[in-house]
């Protein structure tokens, strides 16, 4: 067990964990931030997506020891993020979610896309969102909500 200092949503947190513990489980079990979801553990579904140093990252395969000083942003911080806020509001107004379990990850991927590519094409959307699985099949509305968000962020 080792102690790590993590910057999560702008706050410095100290956790003691096995260095190999994926960031996902540190967030969920040590920091009690359960908005980030476990879906597969092998970076195949994107439910655990966070921004690590600004880059959308599957937290289920990143050992906590490798995070180092890179800031971590999770779904819990999106209401205070100018792009995140818009995306969340559009997600609600377009009734995107169904079971909702994958949507934290979907929103984290969508926010990262809109930050790097403010006017995404269908191809950009498919590439950036391509690793986020939704078993309810909300893809049609996710695609539309990203386009609406891009317009609103203008």
């Amino acid at each position, binding site marked *: 067990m080792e102690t790590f200092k993590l910057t999560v949503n702008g706050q410095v947190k100290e956790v003691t964990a096995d260095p190999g513990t994926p960031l996902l*489980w540190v967030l969920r079990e040590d920091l009690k931030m*359960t908005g980030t979801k476990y879906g597969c553990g*092998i970076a195949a579904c994107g439910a655990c997506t966070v921004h690590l140093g600004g880059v959308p990252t599957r937290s289920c395969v990143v050992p906590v020891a490798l995070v180092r000083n890179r800031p971590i942003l999770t779904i819990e911080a999106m209401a205070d993020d100018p792009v995140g806020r818009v995306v969340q509001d559009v997600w*609600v107004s377009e009734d995107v*979610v169904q079971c909702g379990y994958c*949507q934290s990850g979907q929103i984290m991927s969508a926010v990262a896309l809109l930050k790097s590519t403010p006017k995404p094409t269908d191809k950009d959307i498919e590439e950036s969102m*391509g690793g986020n699985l939704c078993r309810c099949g909300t893809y*049609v509305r996710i*695609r539309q909500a990203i386009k609406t968000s891009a317009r609103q962020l203008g």
Partner: protein
Amino acid sequence: MSTATTSHPPSVSRRTFLRVSSAAAGGLLVSLYLDWPTIAQQPATPKVYPPDAFVHVRPDGKIVVQVNRLEFGQGVQTALPMLLADEMDADWLQVIAELAPAGDVYRDPVYGIQMVGGSGSIAHSFEQYRQLGARTRAMLIAAAAAQWKVTPTQCRAESSVVYGPNGQSARYAELAEAAAHLPVPENIQLKKESDLRLTNKEVRRLDSGAKCNGSQKFGLDVDLPGMKVALVAHPPVFGAKVKGFDANAARAISGVQEVFEIPLVRGTGVAIVADRFWAAKQARDRLRAEWDTASVERPDTAQLFAKYRELARTPGNVAVSRANANAMDSISPANRILAEYEFPYLAHTPMEPLNTTVRFDGDRAEVWGGSQFQTVDRMAIAEVLGLKPEQVTFHTEMAGGGFGRRATPDSHVQREAATVAKRLRGIPVKLIWTREDDVQGGYYRPMHVHRVEVGIGGDGMPAAWRHVIVGQSILAGTPFAPMMVKNGVDSTAVEGTADTKYNIPNFHISAHHPAINVPVLWWRSVGHTHNAFVMETLIDELARRAKADPIAYRLKLLSPDAKKLRNCLALLQGKTASWRSLPRNHAVGIACHESFETGVACAVEVSIEDKRPRIHRATITVDPGFAVNPLTIASQMQGGVTFGITQVMSRGAITLKDGRVEQRNWDGYTPPYMKDAPVIAQVHIVPSSEKPSGCGEPPVPVISPAVVNALSRLTGKRYRTLPLTEI
């Protein structure tokens, strides 16, 4: 109306029976009864549901509605409160929906147990929630009328306020206490359709906000003081038992508390209890267990298909035999089609891995879990713990999808959790199935072989149809079997074929149900998944052979009473009229199917990109009777067709070799991602005032036949084996 749970009927305390009967549309009718002698005294459906078990008007004006079934994406947590709030004249912005715990009063009015299944939520609770709302409103008005010394008919209600004849007004929150002491009226008048303000309108989901900001708690997010996490090492072959295990390396992991053998519904396993998930996972990876796989059947997909193909050559138990079963013999071979279809096992893989949290306190227990079968799961946990069901408090947690996987008649996950909790006594334990457990753990949509011979008449329409279906029975060995398996035919295996809406004069359907050592389960739309594929691809083939328009051909072949499908096809015809000029190498595929009393038709525009079907757009028409929430219905159609695409994914199959499942996770068993789904999916609802029917399952069956019908037009090939590994 001040407390939420006062007047429940007596709980089930003695031995219980599940009784099942066939519903008109092939759905399930289940009733949970006490001992047979008490059946007459305990009707499954109370005549008047007690409003105080469903509605709580809080002093702050919030109206808390208990939803009597699981929410796992289908939108019932919004739709049922809509129905209630509409009749109650409640202020919708003040409505809070909660998932009710397990309780007799929350049993499905038709099934008789607390459950979600058969796309029955709205169909079964439509009247119930409307009546609850109307009764609550009547009681609030009566309370106001008494206070103002006027008659209730002189008062009216709007947006959580009662108005009197002389300018009086009172908020529901002010009246709630007095109303709670009034008798529940038996006779109430429901609103006319034209007076509805929420129902039949596009109302957004109540749970979106929490699901978009990370605050929504699912079963897997349950966190209790002192809670432990448990994983189980399951046998590598279904039903195998532990011969021995070396847990030294597992116990050496920091945070691991206990490693011990436990009985499972099938075979035995080794449970690992730890402080944290990751410790439990590492310990399980390091556990060295030996299994007795020699004494259990070790199924093998290739061998099973060979066996199934052989079985399909002879008729099975007869599901339906209409007119002359031998009419085929008088049709010349040139006018016959012989088609053999193969379908693999399919896993549900809901996004939220299966889990249940249990704390056992000796004389009672508390459970937290997302369950489609609260009544059944609660009974199973009680049985494991040696308690009565009413000693088990069962909290229904929001679930991240399910698609049938959270409705297991044997409650195997809940039994595992209870078994571990029993040993940990006093300590809450969250039992988690990892994604690997889920993919490899069975309870699949059964694999099937269909063998169909179609004789074509002089008019190009099918004159004779001989059809053999081979696949495991889902219902055999469950409490549902006595009523749902008739003449040796599991009705869920032949639904969508035996009861087809197509008018085929000489028609013979039979089924074989081999017993195989692979647990099987209903997978969103159940038998319709494979039966609709067979029917809709063959009908399309017949239409092409007859050089007929695929919609016109279907309309001609449908029986006159297939009103819902006729409505859907007619609407589809209109909505796709502009699809005449397509880009080169694009083609349209059509399919329609009725299931769970809802008709759905679908047109897709498809091309081939990177050797895979690319679905540029889908137009879906649906006749669900009266549309309670058109916004949710559209979501279910869009999502349901995407779920159905699982069937045609190149890695959309669970296979076994020497008894072991060959896929481990979503890398080997790969459901549709965004690029596999329709780019655009437009939904059109047939206007209707008929009683509402379900929308969760009916979109699933149509999409895979529609897609391959389009592919057939592009390549000239027929696709009869799923998954679609090659095009």
